């Protein structure tokens, strides 16, 4: 998913956006693959199993200082005064910074100003954990001591952390200047609703009149965190001449560069950012927090500064996902046809503007072919950390609500849950609830596959139930820049600018090897720093492999053009008579047919005499990412006396377009499902009455451990994406969407209880079971 400044255009299919430029022949020609679809070892694998790979915190610079951040202990407080004088005098302290050291260079760009303020509170601390000052010192103990010497004079303000409380008329205002956008006429009174959005088509009210059965329900989901195992870490070095370097774990070093340069008032070209290996992001490393602070410290101290967040800081002060409150109403006829669907979604954004309810509104009904549909989203401000993307952001909550009601509706009209969905599934030509008309899509195919899957017929044990649910994600393409350089020995360096979050270097290299007609082992894929390539958007929106493989293939085609020219020169024949096949230049035509083909290696060896280095480049906006659908099946066992649930069997069925490296596609499916399962059952941010986070650690923020999960079966479907040369779609996100509802539906099928509050933790489940028993 995109960070705020690129937020306006992440969804090429969205209404009011330019229609996708088809940059490739939409008739998919390629079906016979040699490299694509195989499972070779990844180029970075050896370093990762030997401990040699360098992640964010594994890098040091000479003379480096330790940077630490002082954070607000209050959910909402005016900062009356900050006295840093004692800290500055402590021997070993080399710099102390506050908001005053980060003057506003954002020039009226509201989303950048929000980022600036989120990185360092300006006058008001808006959540527990909000940064208020930072120090750089020679070592960690000195830096810790210095933090204690900073005196902050707070005036505590009333706060609100709950999504439903925040929209009440008397709620404390998180931002007293916030006038709701998207309502006519624009309100004059401030509120905690930052924006209203609406999507849909048809006449919903008329539609409901045709319904034989209507189900209406309200749902809530609690805030979760991406839970990447590697905390944020960076090393910043700024020189007095205005140049700087940043080593950082990020999903998008080019975007970090652009943001940091702007916030620090530096020229973009003078800040060189290198992305480390990244220990998980899932959307959570698409936003800067400590990086601008580290740069400001380094600038002030004129020494490199390393800032590593603790786990507690990660939970309190990075970018978790929204908490939500959703009302859904769906009506259907007895024959199973849905006649109208309506949803209102309230999503928390933290203290700043966001687009989370909007994404929820867009995705809520995307799986279905609906004549009358409406979704209304409200972005709700609360005193919690600024929301960031988390894998298919907002879609899991919306799907939880909609897919729960879908099951209930199927049950009420006496239809099988899968058949009911098949009957209403979107297909090619369907107008999506969020606007565009779908091309070839996989929702129907995943449902049919689910229906046939042996999992569906397997017997269930005592206290077990089976549920299923569908999920959707847009996928994203975006700006991409890729280089191919042929070495003198014919080996190929493939340079990409999309951070590899889980094996994409292998996948992109497979595509380029395929295009060049050379073995995978001959192509080495590396992720370049910002000084080496043109801008690349974040690795988000499931775009890494999709967009960089597309750019890689185009770069390979450009390189092939050069290779053909060089071969022509070596043979001294017109280039029109040279083709490229199986990694060789071949001369064609009666006159030249007897020339022996030239290998890539031979052409490369002669490059010095035929025109110099051989390379291919590609700079694109990778449009047409191709939407993605999944259907999940979950078997859940619940202990009726304690409300504790266990997932006993789980199956993911998802469309990949084309699975370039099937093992990593399966890995994405499994990882997303596991995150969804954790969300469904136990993960949640727990705030105290004082607005402070109660569980900022892995002991009490309960992500699934190995013994919590069964094997996760996967079935990859391949419905080619016509906009990608090899048919690839993004695969990274959709799998987190269905689990919440699939598990709720399983519980409903087993015990007749409808869980409407996620996580479905044991106390909530036990309460529901007992209420059902009484009723």
């Amino acid at each position, binding site marked *: 998913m995109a960070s705020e400044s690129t937020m306006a255009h992440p969804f090429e299919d969205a209404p009011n956006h330019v229609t996708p430029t088809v940059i490739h022949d939409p008739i998919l020609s390629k079906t016979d693959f040699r490299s694509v679809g195989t499972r070779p070892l990844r180029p970075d694998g050896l370093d990762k199993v030997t401990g040699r790979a360098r992640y964010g915190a594994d890098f040091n610079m000479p003379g480096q200082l330790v940077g630490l951040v002082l954070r607000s202990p209050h959910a909402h407080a005016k900062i009356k005064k900050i006295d840093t004088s004692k800290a500055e005098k402590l021997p070993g302290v080399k710099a102390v910074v506050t908001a005053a050291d980060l003057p506003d260079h954002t020039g009226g760009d509201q989303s950048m100003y929000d980022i600036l303020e989120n990185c360092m509170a300006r006058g008001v601390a808006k959540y527990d954990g909000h940064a208020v000052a930072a120090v750089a010192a020679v070592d960690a103990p000195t830096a810790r001591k210095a933090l204690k010497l900073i005196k902050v004079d707070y005036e505590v303000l009333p706060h609100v952390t709950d999504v439903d409380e925040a929209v009440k008329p008397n709620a404390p205002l998180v931002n007293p200047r916030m006038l709701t956008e998207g309502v006519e006429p624009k309100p004059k009174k401030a509120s905690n609703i930052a924006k209203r959005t609406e999507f849909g088509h048809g006449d919903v009210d008329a539609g409901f009149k045709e319904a034989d059965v209507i189900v209406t329900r309200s749902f809530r989901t609690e805030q979760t965190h991406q839970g990447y195992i590697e905390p944020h870490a960076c090393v910043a070095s700024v020189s007095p001449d205005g140049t700087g370097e940043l080593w950082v774990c990020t999903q998008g070093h080019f975007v970090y560069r652009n943001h940091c340069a702007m916030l620090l008032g530096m020229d973009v070209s003078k800040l060189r950012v290198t992305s480390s290996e990244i220990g998980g992001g899932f959307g959570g490393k698409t936003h800067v927090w400590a990086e601008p602070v580290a740069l400001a410290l380094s600038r002030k101290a004129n020494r490199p500064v390393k800032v590593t967040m603790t786990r507690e800081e990660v939970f309190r002060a990075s970018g978790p996902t929204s908490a939500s409150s959703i009302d859904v109403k769906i009506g259907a006829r007895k024959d199973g046809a849905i006649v109208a669907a309506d949803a209102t979604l309230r999503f928390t954004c933290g203290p700043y503007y966001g687009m989370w309810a909007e994404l929820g509104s867009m995705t809520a009904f995307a799986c279905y072919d609906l004549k009358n549909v409406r979704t209304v989203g409200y972005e709700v401000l609360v005193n919690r950390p600024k929301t960031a993307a988390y894998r298919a952001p907002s879609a899991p909550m919306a799907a939880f609500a909609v897919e729960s009601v879908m099951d209930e509706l199927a049950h009420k009209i006496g239809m099988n849950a899968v058949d009911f969905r098949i009957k209403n599934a979107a297909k090619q030509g369907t107008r999506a609830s969020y606007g565009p008309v779908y091309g070839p899509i996989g929702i129907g195919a995943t449902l049919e596959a689910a229906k046939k899957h042996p999992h569906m017929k397997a017997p269930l044990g005592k206290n077990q139930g089976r549920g299923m649910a569908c999920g959707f994600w847009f996928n994203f393409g975006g700006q991409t820049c890729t280089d191919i350089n042929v070495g003198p020995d014919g080996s190929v360096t493939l340079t990409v600018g999309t951070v590899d979050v*889980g094996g994409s270097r292998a996948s992109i290299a497979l595509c380029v090897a395929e295009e060049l007609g050379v073995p995978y082992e001959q192509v080495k894929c590396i992720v370049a720093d910002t000084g080496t390539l043109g801008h690349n958007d974040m690795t988000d929106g499931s775009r890494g492999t999709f967009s960089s493989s597309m750019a890689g293939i185009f770069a390979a085609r450009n390189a092939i053009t050069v290779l053909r020219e060089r071969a022509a020169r070596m043979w001294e024949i017109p280039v029109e008579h040279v083709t490229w096949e199986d990694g060789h230049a071949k001369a064609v035509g009666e006159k030249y047919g007897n020339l022996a083909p030239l290998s890539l290696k031979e052409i490369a060896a002669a490059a010095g005499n035929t025109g110099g280095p051989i390379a291919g480049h590609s700079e694109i906006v990778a449009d047409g990412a191709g939407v993605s659908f999944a259907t999940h099946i979950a078997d859940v066992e619940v202990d009726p006396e304690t409300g504790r649930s266990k997932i006993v069997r789980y199956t993911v069925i998802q469309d990949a377009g084309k699975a370039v490296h099937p093992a990593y596609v399966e890995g994405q499916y*499994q990882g997303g499902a596991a995150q969804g399962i954790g969300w469904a059952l136990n993960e949640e941010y727990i705030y105290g009455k004082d607005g402070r986070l109660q569980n900022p650690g892995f002991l009490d923020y309960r992500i699934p451990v*190995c013994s919590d999960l069964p094997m996760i079966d996967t079935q990859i479907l391949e419905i080619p994406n016509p906009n990608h040369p090899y048919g690839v779609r993004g695969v990274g996100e959709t799998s987190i969407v269905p689990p919440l509802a699939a598990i709720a539906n399983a519980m409903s099928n087993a015990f007749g209880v409808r869980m409407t509050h996620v996580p479905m933790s044991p106390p909530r489940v036990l309460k529901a079971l007992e209420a059902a028993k009484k009723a």
Partner: protein
Amino acid sequence: MAVLVSTAINGDTVEFACDPHESLLDVLRNRLGLSGAKEGCGTGDCGACSVQVDGRVVCACLMLGVEAEGRDIETVEGMSHGTELHPLQSKFLEHAALQCGVCTPGFLMAAKALLEHNPDPTEEEIRFGLAGNLCRCTGYDKIVRAVQDAAKVMRG
């Protein structure tokens, strides 16, 4: 006041000076340049810092550097012999048992200890044996399979 500590790491005698409050993890990472063990939490919850001490797997973040005196410590950096990978390392690669890979060193150390104590574990034993290692990327499926496969190879 720094304390002088003498220990064995991956078979080599190592001497280092550290402050008594420093964790073994800080010593390995910041003083000895062994950054294979990762700090995911610093409080024993994630297992990314797992190392073996006298043949048992521990969280390096939950042990003081000074406690290493006279002990035998093994880190992920000592797992392979020359260019020959440990079967667990090979199987993790083959099974694509890592995505981001930041949990991998910890899993390898924990799995190694597990298989040394129980060469033929059931799936359940593997899952409970590795419950102290968090992985957020894989959903554990491929990790469990890699350990099963490595166990088979190691049993010969």
